[in-house]
C-alpha cells in the first residue's frame, strides 16, 4: 500500500498542503492595521494561489491534464474568470 | 399445444389492448405534448398575464403591494381561471414520466410512485396556491390592507418556498436514473436533477430575507433557481421524446399482468 504513495500525486498533495499553510499564514496576518500585511495585496496573492491550488486539483487529481483540449480550456477559463471576478469585485467594493 | 396457446395469446392481446393506441404509443405522445402545452400556459399566466414571475419584491410597502394587486386585478382573475382549468395537464406529464420510470430495469416501482406522489403534493403550493392567493386579494378591492399583505406573502412564500416536495421529486428521479440498467434516460439528466435539489436548498433563506440575492425575488433563490428549472424541464422533454421514440411498441411494463395471463 505504501508503494502507491510514491507517485506524482503525493508530491502534488504536499505542494497543495504547503500552499494552504502559506495562504493561511498570509491571510491571517493581513488586514488594515499598521502591524498587518497590506490587505489588498494579500487578497490578490491569496486568491492567486488558491486558484493555483484548484488548478492543481483539477489537472492532477481529476486528470484533466490528460483530457481533451476543450475540457482543459473550460476549466482554466473558469479559474481565470473566478479569480478575475473576485479580485475586481474586491477592489470595486472598497 | 404451443401453437394454440400463442394463437390464443394473440387473440387475448388483441381484445385487451386497443389497437389505435398501441400501434404508435399514441397515449404516451399525447401525454408528452401536454408538457410543452402546460408550461407554455404556465409561462403565459405567470410571466405575461399576472406578472408574478419574476415576483414583486418582498420589500414592498403596503401601498406598493395594494397598488400592484389593484393594477393587475383583472389579469389576476383571468390568470387563476386559466391556471385552475389547465393544471390537470401537469398530471399527464407525471403520468408519462411514471410510465418511463416503470420501464427502467433494476429500479423499484416505488420510486416511480414516489415521484407521482411528490408532484401531486407539489402542484398546490408550487403553482395553484399562488394564483389562489392573488385572485383572492383581487376579489374584494376594499379588503383590509393588512389582509392583502398577508395574502401577498402567503402566495409568494409558498410559490418559491415549497421546497420539500420538489426535493423528493428530483431525488427519486435522480436515483432511478442512476440505478437504471436500461439507460432509459441519460445519466447526465440524473446529475441535473441533483441541481434541482440544490435550487430548493438555495430557496431556504426566502423565509427570512426581504431583500438581497436570497429573497423570494433574489438573484440566487429565484432567478438562478428558475433558470436551472427551465433548463432541466427542457432537457427532460427532449429525453422523454427520445425515450418514447426508442420504446418498442408492444413492450409490457414491469408488474403489468395483462399480457402475462395470455402466456
Amino acid at each position: 500500500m505504501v508503494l502507491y504513495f510514491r507517485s506524482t500525486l503525493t508530491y502534488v498533495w504536499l505542494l497543495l498542503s504547503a500552499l494552504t499553510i502559506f495562504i493561511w499564514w498570509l491571510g491571517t496576518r493581513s488586514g488594515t492595521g499598521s502591524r498587518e500585511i497590506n490587505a489588498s495585496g494579500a487578497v490578490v496573492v491569496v486568491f492567486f494561489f488558491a486558484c493555483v491550488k484548484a488548478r492543481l486539483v483539477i489537472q492532477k487529481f481529476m486528470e484533466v491534464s490528460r483530457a481533451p483540449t476543450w475540457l482543459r480550456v473550460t476549466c482554466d477559463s473558469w479559474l481565470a474568470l473566478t479569480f478575475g471576478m473576485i479580485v475586481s469585485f474586491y477592489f470595486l467594493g472598497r | 399445444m404451443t401453437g394454440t396457446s400463442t394463437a390464443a395469446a394473440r387473440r387475448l392481446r388483441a381484445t385487451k389492448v386497443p389497437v389505435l393506441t398501441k400501434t404508435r404509443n399514441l397515449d404516451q405522445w399525447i401525454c408528452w405534448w401536454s408538457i410543452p402545452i402546460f408550461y407554455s400556459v404556465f409561462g403565459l399566466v405567470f410571466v405575461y398575464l399576472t406578472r408574478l414571475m419574476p415576483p414583486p419584491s418582498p420589500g414592498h410597502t403596503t401601498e406598493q403591494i395594494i397598488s400592484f394587486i389593484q393594477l393587475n386585478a383583472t389579469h389576476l382573475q383571468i390568470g387563476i381561471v386559466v391556471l385552475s382549468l389547465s393544471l390537470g395537464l401537469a398530471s399527464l406529464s407525471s403520468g408519462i414520466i411514471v410510465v418511463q420510470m416503470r420501464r427502467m430495469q433494476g429500479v423499484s416501482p416505488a420510486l416511480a410512485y414516489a415521484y407521482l406522489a411528490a408532484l401531486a403534493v407539489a402542484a398546490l403550493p408550487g403553482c395553484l396556491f399562488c394564483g389562489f392567493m392573488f385572485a383572492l386579494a383581487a376579489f374584494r378591492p376594499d379588503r383590509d390592507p393588512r389582509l392583502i399583505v398577508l395574502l401577498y406573502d402567503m402566495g409568494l412564500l409558498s410559490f418559491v418556498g415549497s421546497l420539500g416536495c420538489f426535493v423528493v421529486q428530483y431525488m427519486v428521479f435522480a436515483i432511478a436514473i442512476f440505478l437504471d440498467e436500461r439507460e432509459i434516460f441519460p445519466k447526465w439528466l440524473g446529475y441535473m436533477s441533483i441541481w434541482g435539489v440544490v435550487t430548493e436548498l438555495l430557496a431556504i433563506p426566502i423565509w427570512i430575507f426581504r431583500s438581497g440575492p436570497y429573497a423570494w425575488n433574489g438573484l440566487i433563490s429565484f432567478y438562478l433557481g428558475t433558470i436551472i428549472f427551465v433548463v432541466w424541464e427542457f432537457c427532460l422533454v427532449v429525453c422523454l421524446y427520445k425515450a418514447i421514440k426508442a420504446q418498442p411498441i408492444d413492450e409490457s411494463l414491469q408488474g403489468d399482468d395483462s399480457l402475462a395471463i395470455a402466456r
Partner: protein
Amino acid sequence: MHASFPVEERDILIPGRERETNQQIPGDPSIWVFVIGEMVAFSCYFAAYMWDRGQHHGLFLQAQRDLSQNVAALNTLVLLASSLFIALSVHATRAGDFAIASRFLTLGGTCGAAFVVSKAFEWSSKLAQGLTLGSNAFFMHYYMLTGVHLFHVLLGLVFLGILWRELNKGSPPRARLMEVGATYWHMVDFLWIIIFPLLYLMR
C-alpha cells in the same frame, strides 16, 4: 501489479507521451456536465457574496472576525488529504489492487466525515453565539455557501459509499465508476479551496 481484470486502454500510460495517448475525458462526460454546471453555479454564489461584500464592506469585515480561520485551514488540509486518498484509490483500482483501493477509499471517506463533523461543530458554536442565517448579510452568505457545499460533501460521502460497495462486492469493479465518483469528490475539494479564503481570509 495484478493483471486479473481487463485494464482499459486509457489507463496505459507511456511516460512522457501522456497527452497524446490519453485524450480521454476522465470518468464520464455526464459527471463533467454536472461539474461544469456546479462550477458556474458556485461562481454565481461567489459573485453574489462579493457584490454584497462591496455594499456592506465594514459589516462584512467585522463579521468575518467571528470565524475561526485556523479550524478552516485545518479543514482544507483534511479535504486535500481525502482527495489524495481517493485519487490513490483510483490508481489502485486500475492496477487491480482492490483491497488496497478499498482501504484508500475508507481513509478518504473518513477524512470527508471529519470535515462534516468539524463543520457541524463550527456551525453549532456560531449558533450558540447567536449568529444565525438571518443575523446579517455576511452570515447569510456564510451559512448558504458552507451549507450548499456541505450538502455536496454529504452527497459525496454517499457516492463514496457506493464506490466502496463496488470494490467489495466480489466481482471486478468498474474502473469508470470509480473515476466518476472520484471526479465528484475532487470537485467538492476544489470548491472548498476557493470558499476557504473567500469567507475566512479576505480582509
